[in-house]
């Protein structure tokens, strides 16, 4: 069965107001864009959240716990269970729980940051065949090497790489996402490469139209929000 909608969001801990403190308002527009994109997933029968993790293919149900304690905000958590979710899926669940898609049955799946493109595409195809009318929430960040004040030193290719991703997300161009070079992504610390390639595998024949709602690097890290719908 096809993937009927997809959203792409970044996962900086800074997105969580209790982590950002007085800086929370700086990402109001990004948070709003994420929630609007996830709201559009609410018509599906089930939600699959994909995000980077230590290995590929670990699956969690909606009760799986995640915490922002490791980033300094002990009181902010998702799920009711033990803290097992990686950051990407913790932010994903945190966003979903505030959105119109909160009531959907959901599963979260990890993909290793260094997974091969072929395995990412295969995981995407498996997700697309696994359920009826699936919506995908794909968590992925661009390069943290975008500016002189980036967390990781400026890399001259970071901007071009992120612009390529932005254009592909805007056009639902699965071929371009599938062709992203894992070595360049690693050099640029672009953690979204593997999850985006899962998206490409899951939607290659779904006929979705893309819309890029947000692309900026306010702290030198590339953030994207995209909405893919029928």
């Amino acid at each position, binding site marked *: 069965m096809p993937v009927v909608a997809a959203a792409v969001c970044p996962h900086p801990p800074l997105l969580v107001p209790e982590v950002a403190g007085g800086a929370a308002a700086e990402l109001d527009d990004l948070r709003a864009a994420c929630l609007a994109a996830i709201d559009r997933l609410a018509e599906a029968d089930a939600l699959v959240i994909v995000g980077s993790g230590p290995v590929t293919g670990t699956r969690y149900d909606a009760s799986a716990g995640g915490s922002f304690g490791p980033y300094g905000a002990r009181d902010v958590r998702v799920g009711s269970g033990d803290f097992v979710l990686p950051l990407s899926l913790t932010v994903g669940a945190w966003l979903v729980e505030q959105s119109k898609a909160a009531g959907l049955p959901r599963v979260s799946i990890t993909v290793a940051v260094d997974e091969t493109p072929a395995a990412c595409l295969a995981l995407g195809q498996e997700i697309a065949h696994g359920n009826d009318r699936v919506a995908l929430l794909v968590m992925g960040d661009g390069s943290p090497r975008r500016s002189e004040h980036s967390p990781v*030193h400026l890399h001259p290719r970071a901007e071009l790489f992120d612009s390529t991703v932005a254009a592909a997300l805007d056009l639902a161009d699965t071929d371009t996402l599938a062709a992203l070079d894992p070595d360049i992504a690693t050099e640029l610390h672009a953690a979204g490469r593997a999850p985006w390639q899962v998206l490409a595998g899951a939607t290659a024949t779904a006929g979705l139209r893309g819309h890029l709602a947000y692309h900026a690097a306010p702290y030198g890290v590339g953030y994207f929000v995209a909405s893919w719908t029928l």
Partner: protein
Amino acid sequence: MAIVNRTPDSFFDRGATYATDAAYEAIDRAVADGADLVDIGGVKAGYGEPVSEEEELRRTVDFVAGIRDRHPDLVISVDTYRSGVARRVGAAGANLINDTWAGSDPQMPAAAAEVGAGLVCSHVGGLTPRTDPHRMAYDDVVADVIRTTTGLAERAVAEGVSRDAIVIDPTHDFGKNTLQSLELTRRLDELAATGWPVLVAVSNKDFIGETLDLPPGQRGTGTIAALSVSAWLGARVFRVHDVPAARQALDLIAVLRGVALPAGTRRSLA
């Protein structure tokens, strides 16, 4: 511990003591203002122009020897992550190696031992030298700092560094976000409880700047507040830019803690 950088680009002083004469004057002034130690740095901590080992040696070795001549009893620390530099400055008279990048050079403890110097054992969360933290995550940042720094300290002892010449440093901001550095400050007593002397380097750092929303030039009062809490919770060595302010705060805290007496108490007593 007064900071005197032989760098053109450090974040706070921006090269004020890069020139030799200015650096010697800064040392003399620090000693006059009450510093017990000086910490000499030849490489900016953060990202910046690469500094070769030769250049770092050029900036530090003769300077350390010169300080030793002028101040025979001053404790001289050198902030370096290179064992080759540690050996040379140790031979020139340095007493302490401030290995801020937490043993990134595995030869460091042996180098310190070889020249009879002490060692500052730091925590940077696994970062490589001169890089910034990005989304560092700790189940318990204090526990991680204790495990890492005391592990480095025991290793240093095993490699021949004198046990009483080792201090541990939670290394605020290095490999930590602001919330994590604040947590370390709040729970500094847990580090002190390890028994190892604790060094804190909070002076003008970003966790103070982010907390108060102030740029580097305006963090002096916040620095004294963080330093005072650290002292109250058991820190023993304080790496600072503003020696007179730190000295005054620490002298008062020593009396509050009951380990020193007031200079004179005449009010209402005559």
